[in-house]
């Protein structure tokens, strides 16, 4: 939304504001030059990161890159119900379902792709999933070298190195069966 402000008498005194702002900027700069950030807790120096050597770790609730969870045996948890794809406002999830040889599984995804460039990180996919098969994790760096790297496939979503063998889903079919559900 753009607001059009009428020039007022007060606004014509802008120089005062500019000097105030510059004052804050320069005082911070000088303080940072004089004092060192670090061990000393009451240091007045501003904390900055030396990105990319140092990275900020977001909490687990951060809606970053997607993770497909796995079952206890390490196979993919997703049942290919396509609710996430249906719910996705950016329509960036593409799933191809197939019939599984294992009758207790019945249906599973042979391909699951997220076009991360189209994703708006809304988290609706996570909300739609009935079996906790897709989550959004704390990873937030999505840089890649070429276009095709932005289309995340099952291998990347479930088994990328950062996940250390996969995240186990909270919803376990066998346990539910044992409980008589």
């Amino acid at each position, binding site marked *: 939304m753009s607001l059009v402000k009428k020039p007022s008498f007060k606004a014509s005194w802008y120089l005062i504001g500019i000097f105030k702002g510059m004052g804050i900027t320069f005082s911070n700069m000088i303080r940072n030059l004089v004092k060192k950030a670090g061990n000393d807790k009451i240091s007045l120096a501003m904390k900055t990161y030396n990105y990319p050597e140092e990275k900020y770790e977001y909490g687990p609730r951060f809606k970053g890159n997607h993770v497909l969870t796995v079952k206890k045996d390490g196979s993919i948890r997703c049942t290919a119900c*396509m609710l996430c794809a249906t719910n996705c406002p950016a329509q960036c999830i593409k799933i191809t*379902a197939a019939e599984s040889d294992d*009758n207790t599984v019945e249906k599973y995804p042979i391909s699951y792709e997220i076009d991360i460039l189209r994703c708006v990180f809304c988290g609706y996919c996570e909300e739609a999933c009935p079996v906790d098969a897709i989550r959004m994790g704390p990873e937030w760096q999505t840089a890649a070298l070429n276009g095709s790297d932005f289309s995340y496939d099952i291998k990347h979503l479930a088994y990328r190195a950062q996940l250390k063998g996969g995240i186990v889903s909270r919803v376990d079919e066998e346990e539910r069966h044992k409980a008589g559900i």
Partner: protein
Amino acid sequence: MLKCKINGQDVEVAEGSSIIEAFKATGQDIAHYCWHPGLSVAGVCRLCMVEIEGNPRLQIACNTQVQEGMVINNNSDKIKDAVKWGLDFHLINHPLDCPICAQAGECQLQIQYMKFGQYDPEMAERKVKKRKVVDLGPKIVLDTERCILCSRCVRFTDEVSKTNELGIFNRGDHSEIGTVDDRPLDNPYSVNTVDICPVGALTSREFRFQQRVWYLKNETTVCNGCSTGCSTKVYFNEEGMWRVKPDHNDDVNGYWMCDEGRGTPRFVNKDSRLLSAWNGQKDEGQDLEAGAAAKAVGQTLKKVVAEQGSDKVAFVVTGQYTDQENRAFLSLAKDLGVKVYHWVNNPEKMDEFDGLLIRGDKNPNTYGLKEAMKEVGVGSPWSELESSVSDLEYVVVAGPENHFAYSDLTDKVDLFSKANHQVWFVAGDHDVLRAASNKVSLIPTKTYVEKDGTYKNFEGREQRIRRVMTLVPGALSLTEASKLMSGQELLVDGNVSESYRKTNFFSSNERGYL
């Protein structure tokens, strides 16, 4: 006629009608699982509850006849409560595996639950586990846990297909749908049981898991699998056609269709289609634009007729095209003065009929073709072509789109190979054609879901087919091809006359609806 009042709306129904029929007549909504208009009444699901004024107890609408002056409603709180409990009982042992259930999105349980349910189940007991993924023959997969024992499928095999395979076995909450010793349910109409099953207990092996139903759009058309011409609905998305279901039409097919007619995606979808025109011989040749190829063929034909006489060219037609196409193609033949031969794919079976729907004539428009040939005044006996083919310069064939019904395709290609050239208007891509020993031109044609027109079925009933989608952009209808061959241009008119073609089906409105 009897007068009654349904939810405050006056309606007149014929004597002997049930209340549920009166509901249907008014277009009012009523829950029902076991009642199906094409089957007998079972009255087992207890979901169609109605309140009749003056009657202290709720009644089921499907098995109660309307009487003069009845005042009926199904929107009171009492009804809602009854339906809610009915649904709860149905769900006691229901697995609720909607995520992996092919029925999800068109499942009556889901629909009723969203309307009347939305409660937490009040059952503390463990669910009774039954058999899942039961192999019920080549076309059907059964999940006995999901079955709500409405008995529609049993009544279908008893009353419609009269094959009596299915039954309900065991008692109480161990009751199961099945066949004796799991014998396959394999009759020519078996997939209808999948359509009428209100839940995901019976699913079609072919369609299962291919697509979520809410991603598909549907459009009514006429089946081109045989000369009965059943009304059908084709389900499609931007990738192609995924399944065919019967559409209700009392005059032709009632509520049913045969299993074979559901196989039309096999020859309609892109992977089996001829995508561009081709000129060549013995597997070597080059691709061309379809329109340009048709024009070139037209010019050559004119030249051949002018220089060597009209008996050097023959046209071959099949009953696979619409009336409009037949007329255009036959008129072209008449203008050129060439002979036209009707290729009958299975002459000995043409008049067969199984008593329900399936006919031996596997062409949708043989009747129309014969009529058009008479009208235009062309047509010569097939034997004549067989004897004279080696003298011919050109054989122009309006080939079949449903090549599965043309088991003699290879024989005919061999026959036409005796002429110097053969030109095929054909929808499918066939290796035998590309491998033919004489010079071949292939020009891609549209299938029945890509064009408008009319078919005349076995009894001459005129039925309209409509353009539903475009799968092969360059393909021509026979009308367009004939125009191009006779030297006319195709006019591209920007006005879309059909309202249903204006919408971009895949952009928004219904997408994602559950």
